[in-house]
């Protein structure tokens, strides 16, 4: 490792030029292949992307955009959190609709059986989440899903959220839940940030 090959004065310039020449060849070859493949592939994306509506919606084709779940607003999430709190005062009871609910509207019925899912990682969830939300990290879906499957199946509505803003974990999780045949699913795009900005309480700690 320490013995250097002794070479003449011209020897140092030529090898580095050769490195650059070879590197340029590889970069050009890769770029050319990439542009051709991107142009002919159905999975190709525009050369300049539109990130004006956040990363979660960027580079999705019209079919993908149409397949995204419906969005739910903060007020409705607040109703769901209240319904979950009525349903299970302290512990994590099963997802049965509340019999004591005075409101009989469809929204209230859905809220009563709704399950709120936090798509963020377990440590972020433990640092603070919307009260009553269950943690189903999109990144560890396969490990976390079996433990929550029965509660998800029993839900009348699944509401998925993450941080809000550019966060797209909720989109990922909604897609995975849809693939598993679950529904209806709604997305809370404002997410945890919007919940906190509205001055609501959060809950800390891991999933009960």
């Amino acid at each position, binding site marked *: 490792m320490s013995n250097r*090959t002794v*070479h003449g004065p011209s020897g140092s310039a030529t090898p580095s030029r050769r490195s650059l020449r070879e590197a340029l060849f*590889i970069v050009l070859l890769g770029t050319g292949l990439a542009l051709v493949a991107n142009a002919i592939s159905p999975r190709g994306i525009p050369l300049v992307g539109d990130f004006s509506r956040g*990363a979660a919606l960027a580079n999705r084709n019209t079919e993908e955009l149409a397949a995204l779940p419906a969005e739910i607003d903060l007020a409705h999430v607040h109703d769901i959190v209240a319904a979950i709190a009525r349903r299970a005062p302290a512990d994590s009871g099963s997802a049965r609709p509340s019999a004591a609910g005075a409101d009989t509207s469809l929204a209230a019925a859905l809220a009563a059986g709704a399950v709120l899912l936090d798509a963020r990682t377990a440590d972020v969830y433990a640092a603070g989440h919307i009260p009553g939300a269950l943690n189903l990290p999109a990144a560890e879906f396969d490990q976390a899903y079996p433990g929550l499957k029965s509660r998800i199946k029993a839900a009348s509505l699944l509401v998925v959220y993450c941080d809000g803003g550019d966060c797209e974990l909720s989109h990922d999780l909604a897609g995975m839940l849809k693939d598993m045949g679950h529904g209806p699913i709604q997305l809370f795009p404002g997410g945890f940030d919007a919940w906190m900005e509205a001055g609501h309480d959060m809950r800390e700690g891991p999933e009960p």
Partner: protein
Amino acid sequence: MSARRILYHLVRVAVGAVFLYASVHKVIAPAEFSRTVYHYQLLPAAAINLIAIVLPWIEGVVGICLILGVKMRGAAGIAVVSLLVFLVAMGSALARGLNIDCGCFAAAGTKLGFDRIVGDLVLLAAAALLYRESARESIALTALPSLAPSSVKESS
């Protein structure tokens, strides 16, 4: 073949395989990878897609070159530079407290963490050794053309 040469070829193929493997999912899913690049918050929005399209292919070509042992100096050089760039990108993302996908081996879905930094450093060391060794090889070949076996001579 000396032990050093055997080690060189083993490392060459191993690093090449890692690069090729790392490129596949990103090549297949450019839309996902573009969102991962976006989350690093390092590039202007206008550059993100271009990088997301081109980078995985360069990664793949580098991997193939390393595996086949062709254009070794260029491939090892790009490997070193790209691993340094990834190191800076990942380090800055962790320093900023970003909780994002790594984009290392999959376009999305694998979390960025310190283990990825360690992995990058290991690869970086291997790629740097490959670059050194391939430079040494080409110097030796140009300095002593008469001693170089014709089968080892690279066409360029």
